């Protein structure tokens, strides 16, 4: 399936990309994270287990076991600091 993946704030800067299309053969958000971690470098570091980040699918916060669908908008970002 094809996903649209967005990065925000510190993660956007560390990855050097704000948005990309990704071909994805896995099932869950956790599988997508594993695929991104496999890129190494900042990806492996920032998305390691225990690091503080949030994951949203179609603009709703989800857990790692959320199942992705073709065309999903997935976003990965640091804990929020507005207000």
């Amino acid at each position, binding site marked *: 399936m094809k996903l649209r993946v967005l990065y925000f704030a510190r993660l956007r800067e560390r990855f050097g990309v704000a948005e990309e299309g990704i071909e994805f053969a896995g099932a869950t958000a956790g599988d997508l994270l594993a695929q991104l971690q496999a890129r190494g470098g900042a990806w492996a570091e920032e998305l390691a287990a225990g690091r503080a980040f949030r*994951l*949203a699918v179609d*603009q709703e916060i*989800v857990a790692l076991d959320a199942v992705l669908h073709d065309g999903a908008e997935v976003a990965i970002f640091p*804990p*929020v600091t*507005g*207000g």
Partner: protein
Amino acid sequence: MKILVQADVFDLGSEVDAMRQGRTDIGAIASFVGLARDMNDGSGVAAMTLEHYPGMTEKALAALVDEANARWALQDVTVIHRIGRLLPGDPIVLVAVASRHRGEAFAACEFIMDYLKTQAPFWKKEETADGERWVEARASDDAAAARWNHKPDLFS
């Protein structure tokens, strides 16, 4: 109900007056304005830039307001959050809640602010003498939101 994400400045007086306009059934309006400070975490802040997640931001704010409406008997709610570059003294966020009684207006206003701080996708970057830095999420904000017994954050 009014929810706005905008670069422009807002005016507390105008927003609260708009809530009251033509109504005689409101007993209490609790409101909050968050402002950009010149100091944070021990260093001077010359300016800050607020980034957000367009689309999700509005949804997250609407969900917070829906939750507040489900918990308390509210008559009107306004939430305005600014984005872009702001200077010390500039207003960042406004929450105003109208209700018949003050207890509900206060509770809902503080609830929306506490949740906004942990659930709405905004991020602050500060300009300091040592360069730019992303503001880190605070444990105290998680604790403030947890007081309201919401489902816990999914990652931490």
